[in-house]
């Protein structure tokens, strides 16, 4: 699949291969010319022959280098260009993934596939045009030239070639699995190290430093032993091939000497023949590189293809509805949802309505399906049964862009991007004025700490927001949503890192801001949501109760339990 990205470069590739062919021909011509110099020049004491063929060799060599450099130029552009197209295609494809595909492949794996794997394939495409194609050409060409130079000596080649082919295949076959298992040992070592880094406080607190050290040393020793075995096996390859080649040369000289004596073979031809023999051997050794590079590239391209094979599970309709105005009436009509391949549905028979001006809170234990509820409204996933309606229209009839344009979403795990605070807030609304940004930040209770920063709203946020506290990040994430001034607000447990103080002030300010909008709040803290217009109590994917705080306290056992786990008697009342 990925090779369709090579298509735009097919003329370049054709050109590179033609140049490569010419270059191989020049490489094969040089020994023949040398034979002439020896046979007709030196042997017959004819300096004009030496000079003439010397010049021809120069011409041929110049032609060769020209082909090589021009070929290198096109091969570089082809490989790098292919990498660019592939990378861009991959990134675009991934950018349109729904969450299902993301979960399946994993964020970090997707990153490696976009970067390392593409780089690996790109490198192989380059090497293919330069080395991998050249070796077989030289191999065949040199055999033809060798046979052409002398048939009898060629028989000797026939005897030696199988030995070296056997050696190369033997070592490749034995060492490849070793290198593969070495990769596993490296992963094991990394795991130990990663666990060490994430658990450093616990490891120290439990005085398990020695234990951790032994665990690492054991993994390290295993890796070392594997690497040693693999490398020692490979150490055979070079010297082994060299030996076979050199013995072949000795045999050729020995066999030739009597024929030279008898005058049936010319010295120059023998010299040329030896050169061809060496070219054949060298090309064979170069071909082992194919065995190293190709499996890696194959693995990489398989991983990339696996990404392309994922079709977004959520797609836009062919003829999307584009409403002129949205009021924000949200209806869940008997919605059931399950993650792909999950045994049990995460949400079952969910029905409720939310109208503009209303604040609906969703509460329940971990794994109750609260976040999934919001994800469905955003169409990160599609429902299995039932429907979600916005102003009476099934949300699947809008394009994802239209739908999301009316929603402001604050995720549970805060995500900020590198850039200034302005840049980050404007991710919510690209053409927001400075005034709008400041207003949003004021409501999100973020203005105070932003203004204390040295560059105010122009302060840079490090990747992942590392230079901010959890609460500060959450407030920026909220401001980014507020700046949209949408019809629907979705807050997914995003007040958790705020201290109660800020939380309370923020809720107060929000109330005014969202007066004509529909607001859905997922929360763990009862105190954050007890004043909501309606509270949905969720447990194991079902709604067990809908009502106000007071109503639910009377009727809903789960709600009662949750409340009692957080508040004292007099606080509840």
């Amino acid at each position, binding site marked *: 699949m990925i090779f369709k990205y090579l298509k735009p470069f097919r003329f370049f590739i054709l050109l590179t291969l033609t140049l490569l062919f010419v270059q191989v021909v020049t490489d094969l011509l040089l020994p023949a010319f040398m034979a002439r110099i020896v046979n007709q020049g030196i042997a017959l004491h004819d300096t004009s022959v030496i000079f003439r063929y010397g010049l021809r060799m120069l011409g041929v060599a110049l032609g060769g280098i020209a082909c090589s450099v021009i070929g290198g130029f096109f091969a570089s552009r082809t490989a790098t260009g292919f990498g660019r197209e592939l990378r861009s295609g991959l990134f675009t494809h991934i950018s349109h993934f729904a969450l299902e595909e993301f979960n399946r492949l994993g964020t970090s794996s997707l990153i490696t596939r976009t970067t390392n794997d593409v780089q690996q394939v790109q490198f192989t495409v380059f090497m293919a045009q330069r080395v991998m194609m050249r070796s077989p050409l030289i191999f065949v060409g040199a055999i033809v030239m060798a046979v052409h130079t002398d048939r009898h000596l060629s028989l000797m080649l026939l005897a030696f070639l199988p030995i070296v082919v056997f050696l190369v295949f033997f070592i490749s076959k034995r060492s490849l699995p070793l290198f593969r298992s070495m990769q596993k040992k490296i992963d094991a070592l990394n795991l130990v190290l990663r666990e060490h880094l994430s658990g450093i406080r616990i490891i120290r607190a439990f005085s398990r430093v020695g234990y951790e050290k032994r665990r690492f040393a054991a993994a390290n020793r295993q890796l070392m032993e594997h690497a040693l075995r693999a490398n020692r096996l490979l150490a055979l390859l070079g010297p082994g091939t060299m030996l076979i080649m050199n013995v072949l040369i000795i045999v050729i000289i020995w066999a030739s000497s009597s024929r030279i004596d008898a005058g049936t073979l010319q010295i120059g031809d023998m010299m040329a023949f030896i050169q061809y023999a060496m070219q054949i051997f*060298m090309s064979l050794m170069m071909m082992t590189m194919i065995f190293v590079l190709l499996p890696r590239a194959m693995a990489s391209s398989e991983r990339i293809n696996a990404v392309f094979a994922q079709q977004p599970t959520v797609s836009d309709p062919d003829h999307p509805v584009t409403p002129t105005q949205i009021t924000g009436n949200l209806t869940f009509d008997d919605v059931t949802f399950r993650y792909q391949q999950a045994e049990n549905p995460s949400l079952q028979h969910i029905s409720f309505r939310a109208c503009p001006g209303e604040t609906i809170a969703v509460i329940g234990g971990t794994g109750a399906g609260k976040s999934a509820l919001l994800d469905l409204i955003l169409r990160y996933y599609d429902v299995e049964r039932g429907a979600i309606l916005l102003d009476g229209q099934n949300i699947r009839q809008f394009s994802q862009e239209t739908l999301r344009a009316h929603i402001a979403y604050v995720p549970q795990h805060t*995500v900020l991007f590198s850039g200034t605070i302005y840049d980050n807030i404007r991710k919510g609304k690209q053409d927001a004025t400075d005034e709008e940004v400041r207003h949003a930040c004021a409501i999100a209770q973020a203005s105070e700490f932003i203004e204390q920063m040295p560059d105010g709203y122009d302060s840079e946020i490090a990747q992942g927001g590392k230079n901010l506290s959890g609460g500060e990040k959450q407030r920026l994430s909220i401001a980014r949503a507020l700046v949209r001034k949408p019809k629907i607000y979705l807050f997914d447990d995003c007040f958790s890192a705020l201290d109660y103080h800020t939380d309370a002030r923020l809720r107060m300010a929000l109330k005014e801001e969202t007066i004509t909008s529909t607001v859905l709040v997922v929360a763990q803290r009862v105190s954050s949501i007890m004043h909501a217009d309606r509270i949905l109590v969720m447990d194991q994917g079902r709604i067990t109760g809908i009502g106000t705080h007071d109503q639910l306290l009377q009727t809903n056992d789960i709600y009662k339990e949750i409340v009692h786990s957080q508040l004292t008697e007099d606080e509840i009342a």
Partner: protein
Amino acid sequence: MAQNTHIRPKYNVRGRGGGSGPPIVGRIGEKSKDFKGTLQKILCYIKPQYKGLATVFAFALLGTVFSIAAPKLIGMGVDHLFPRVDFGYIGKILLLLLVLYLLASLFSYIQEYTMAGVAQRIIQRMRNDVAEKLQHLPLQFYDTRTHGEILSRVTNDIDTISTSFQQSLLQLVTAIFTLFGVTVMMMTLSLWLSLLTFLVLPLGVGLTAFIAKKSHTFYAGQQRALGRLNGHAEEMYGGHKVVRAFHYEAASIEEFNATNQQLYAFGWKAQFVSSVIFPLFNFLGNLAFMAICIVGGFLAVTGRMTLGNIQSFITYSRQFNQPISQVANITNILQSTLAAAERVFEILEETEESPDPVAPKEIDHPKGEIVFDHIKFRYDPDQPLIEDISLSIKPGDIVAIVGPTGAGKTTLVNLLMRFYELSGGRITIDGVDITQMKRKYLHRLFGMVLQDTWLFKGTIRENILYGWGDATEEELLNAADTALANPFIRALPDGYDTVINEEANNISEGQKQLLTIARAILINPSVLILDEATSSVDTRTELLIHRAMTEVMKGRTSFVIAHRLSTIRHADRILVMNKGCLVEQGTHAELLEKEGFYARLYNSQFAT
């Protein structure tokens, strides 16, 4: 006759230690900051391997001598082919050659075999040293670096060094020996032809320098673009939900493509320039070869040089050119190796935790009386993190620490456990200054449960036993029982032998927390620290955990850091912290009465 009888393979079949990235290509273009210093430090690692290295060098030297003798022998043989073949002489020469080649191949195998051992041992030691070092670095080190950064040094960087040792070092040594030997042989054969060959040398060196300079700019640019591209992909994939929610895809793709285009612009040039090196050197070699053919031909025709000598000389000139073309590549690799080594040594040279006292004190029967005596702490001299806190805590007390994010709650317990060193004041446990105890002993006094439930890949049993490897089965079960973890563990298909996988997602967050509590109970600590232990579970699970904890906290001094104030109402004492200072303390009722910071925090729960 044979022009280049001894060619080392120029490519690289040896697998890199790890990763699946393209060989070398990625990191070329880096330079080390302190060349000499780093080299010296590497030498320290090489030194213990001197026996192996001496073997490698000795065999490399012998091997080179043989590979240099061979062309001369062949030349001598050729001279006896012409005009009449002297079979006896040639037979002898060929036999000698055979022996020579056999030995050369054997030596070369011994070299590579030994070098593999040397390189791997050096690398193993280096990795162990880094791992050992990581155990002794203060927590500060980990606070200021990302995991990825540290991981990349222990794996990628050490890997680069490993590959370099395995291949380039041997190549460099042989190249130098060969260059030297070949020069001598060429001079003895023909001064004029030698001069001709050397003429090509400055051309080659100049070319290398030029290309290296060019490629450095391109590689550096490529590296920068690649870094930006990775960063962008990481950010966008990490924030995929947000990107899609705010319809930022198009802008993100546009930005990606712009950087991608830059990567292309630098990338193809880097690729092209480096692809040109080899053919150019090849051409230079051919040029020298032709010049020798022509001039040598004239010399032979006029009888001033034998055909055999010309033949030998041609081989030598090839051998002469080859190391020079390698040098360009090797210096590149060595440079990136040094840069990698430098990053590794940076870790190895970080300041360690202060050593344990020479005459450490121990507490006979730890009771858990803790005194903070005017303690101060700051990372950076201008930013106080803890300002003059004094406290004394009775054995068995439950102490809650509350306050907004960044108030210094976790820092306070980190100081108690001596993860950080105080900048002023002192902390004592049962009257003994914590700096007078061994760290290991000190840590044994504490049981710690954190918000981040750290479990490793292994069985539940192994994870609970983590704190106390030689606990009996009964103690294990008791701990699990007290932590209320027993029922759910029993319900798992493999019970205590259930393997917790790498992501630890086969049990719930609350269950994980119960396991970490069992782990803390097992060591029977005098002091218990619960740092936001229930923040990531829902409140009903929290209630369960609290029930487990109340049992555990009996008779132990406990520190509870909590976000949800509802969980700490029953503490014996509540410490209210803000901006590194202790602003209030007392029981829940006392503090509410005071109507101060705590009361405000607490009441804001119900503001509307």
